[in-house]
């Protein structure tokens, strides 16, 4: 006893100066520069926007439940189209992945925090500001030119109210936010890996956040330039997109999709990363073909910069150009296919533990492959001349973004929630949530392929009582409601 006390007394006192006390209370969330707290802020905020975007989708499905419905005004419908697409892309999928990255990347590479913690906080607040500015337009006139805001419809000659300006402001603010975030991720991953965390040992999720960041840095300047040009067209008399003033409406489409297609992979690659983390854990097996999975992510990153005009196949464009973009889009199917095969091989001969994250990850695999196949079909440009701007395309993007990214995001959420909160989630409710989401999603979107085959264009607020359109639309709406039940169950 005596000796122990003596030893304790002899322990040297450590004195530190110049370190601020860790702030507590709710105001600490406003001033935090801690990567985990910022990550949680991102996750919470993006799920609020996810619910808003979901409500918008639901209103559209209600309107379309019957032919010649009069529930919504046409302008309101166009506003919902725009708000839903913009919200899901810019305020949910891209920033929710930034949230996961913020929380997990420093932990996974053994860094103390992000490279620039204050810049990191600025990213979050710019993102929130962009969302608030955009949603403020609900009290005035929301934008109604679609999330793609094609010129000249988005020009002030056709939509003079300020909704489009709110949209431009959102693109700028969330764009700067993502750009700063991407620089931060890049700097962190390149420079702050712990000793021994070599490139070849880095978790796949970190790899995908790295290529996500590269893509953001490459793609965002194009859309930033485009919306600035649109802003000056609208308010300062320039005519970049106005053919009567010597401009060209097609320039908008090229600039927008030069950003817009890499954006699809920006939303998909970190989701691929999460799946690559989750499958091995629940299969109790290492990831099959680590190098191939990482290399295919790099190949997708490169190729995704070369496929943008496959969104523009029906425009007046030379056949040789169309053929190039078809072939480049085919090429991107190869690394994507490699990933799917590697994930299947990871499950093969494992001992698969059937838990909620695994259900979502398997759901991702089964749904994403549908989106992948319909993507290759749409890349055949003469076939796209039929399907472009129909419900087939709507189904395709939802199988990629909802069946793909959102299923992966839910897998990640169920997988990492215990680590983030210190609480385990109910396994029963988790499975129920998966079941409702899987059934609801397929009810909503599978039939939309058929609507596209029957020639129903997208973005129409009403349709005539023609062929199977009413029945298929009703199924789709019922499916959408199953997902509301899901949302309630999840909450």
């Amino acid at each position, binding site marked *: 006893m005596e000796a122990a006390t003596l030893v304790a007394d002899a322990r040297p006192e450590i004195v530190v100066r110049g370190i601020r006390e860790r702030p507590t209370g709710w105001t600490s969330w406003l001033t935090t520069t801690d990567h985990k707290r910022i990550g949680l802020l991102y996750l919470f905020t993006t799920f609020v926007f996810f619910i808003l975007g979901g409500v918008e989708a639901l209103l559209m499905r209600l309107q379309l439940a019957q032919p010649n419905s009069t529930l919504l005004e046409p302008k309101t419908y166009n506003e919902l189209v725009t708000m839903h697409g913009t919200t899901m892309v810019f305020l949910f999928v891209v920033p929710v992945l930034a949230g996961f990255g913020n929380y997990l990347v420093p932990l996974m590479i053994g860094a103390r925090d992000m490279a620039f913690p204050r810049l990191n906080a600025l990213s979050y607040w710019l993102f929130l500001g962009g969302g608030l500015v955009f949603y403020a337009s609900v009290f005035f006139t929301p934008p109604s030119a679609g999330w793609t805001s*094609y010129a000249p419809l988005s020009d002030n000659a056709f939509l003079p109210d300020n909704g489009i300006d709110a949209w431009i402001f959102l693109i700028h603010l969330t764009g700067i936010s993502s750009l700063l975030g991407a620089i931060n991720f890049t700097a962190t991953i390149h420079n702050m890996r712990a000793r021994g965390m070599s490139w070849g040992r880095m978790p796949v999720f970190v790899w995908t956040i790295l290529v996500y960041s590269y893509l953001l840095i490459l793609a965002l300047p194009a859309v930033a330039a485009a919306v600035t040009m649109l802003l000056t067209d609208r308010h300062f008399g320039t005519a970049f997109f106005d053919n009567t003033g010597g401009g*060209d*409406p097609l320039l908008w489409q090229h600039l927008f999709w030069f950003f817009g297609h890499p954006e699809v992979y920006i939303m998909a690659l970190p989701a691929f990363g999460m799946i690559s983390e989750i499958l091995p854990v629940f299969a109790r097996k290492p990831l*099959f073909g680590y190098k*191939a999975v990482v290399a295919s992510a790099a190949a997708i990153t490169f190729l995704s910069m070369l496929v943008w005009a496959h969104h523009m196949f029906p425009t007046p464009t030379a056949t040789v150009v169309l053929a190039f973009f078809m072939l480049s889009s*085919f090429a991107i199917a190869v690394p994507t296919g490699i990933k799917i095969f590697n994930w299947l091989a990871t499950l093969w001969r494992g001992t698969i533990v059937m838990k909620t994250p695994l259900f979502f990850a398997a759901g991702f*695999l089964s749904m994403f492959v549908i989106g992948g196949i319909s993507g290759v079909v749409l890349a055949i440009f003469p076939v796209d001349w039929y399907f472009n701007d129909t419900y087939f395309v709507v189904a395709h993007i939802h199988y990629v973004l909802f069946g793909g990214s959102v299923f992966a995001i839910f897998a990640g959420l169920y997988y990492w929630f215990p680590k983030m909160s210190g609480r385990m989630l109910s396994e029963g409710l988790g499975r129920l949530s998966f079941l409702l989401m899987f059934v609801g999603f397929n009810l909503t979107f599978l039939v939309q392929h058929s609507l596209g085959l029957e020639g129903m*264009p997208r973005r129409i607020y009403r349709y005539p009582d023609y062929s199977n359109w009413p029945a298929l639309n009703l199924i789709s709406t019922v499916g959408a409601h199953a997902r509301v039940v899901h949302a309630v169950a999840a909450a």
Partner: protein
Amino acid sequence: MLGALALLLIAAPSAFADFFTPENKGGSRNADDIQTLFVIAMIIGGVIFAGVEGVLVYSLIRFRRRRGGPEPAQIRGNTPLEMGWTVGAAVIVAILAVITFAFLGGITTPERSLPSGATAGNALQVASIDQASVPGGHSLEIHVNGQQYLWRYDYPAVRGQQVFGYYDMYVPVGTTVTLKITSSDVAHSWWIPKLGGKADAIPGHTNSTWFRINRPGIYAGECAELCGEGHADMRARVIAVPPAQFQAWLVRQAADIKDAQAKLSLARQIRGEGNP
């Protein structure tokens, strides 16, 4: 459970007869070729889909963790297998590319008009076209102009009189019709599903497409690019009639327009507004 769900999902929609094919057959050859190309792509896609989902469902059932089951196999990869499926995927898309190019000519190059189709002479001027040429044949060129929220069609002039119409496009059967498509306000997209693919109408650009209808009938479609509040109501019909009937319609339309223009200018003179 997943397997049962997958079965349900496959079985439920097939209750609809035309679930698997686009409803575009029987209008014009380019539409038929697009459909054939789509069906080929879907067969290839369907095989891949069945393979992937099959392996997935099999793995989830066969390799579930069981009490006393085998230890998981600690495999990190297999280079020959990786090479195999990379090359396999590349070969599949290469085959798809070859098939597409084989069909491309039939979709983009206009067919020859049938001998029974409308011919040069009488009131109808038949234009030679500068897009992919109609081999050894003649065709009718119609200028399509998208406007919020209707379609305007300009036909060849009849004895110096401009002929145009809205919403309903009259065409002679058996005759190759080439369309020159543009817009005078925002971007629209011309689409009659049974008569081939879309062609975007972009202000300042001229797009082109073609069709040849062999049976009289009415072919409906609507604008396929979000163009504003009236987008959903911007519909169009192509009405195919026998050549003689078409010639008669053209002459009558020319006369009607001439008459209406004369009345309009008379009314303006009476009101003292002068000629437009």
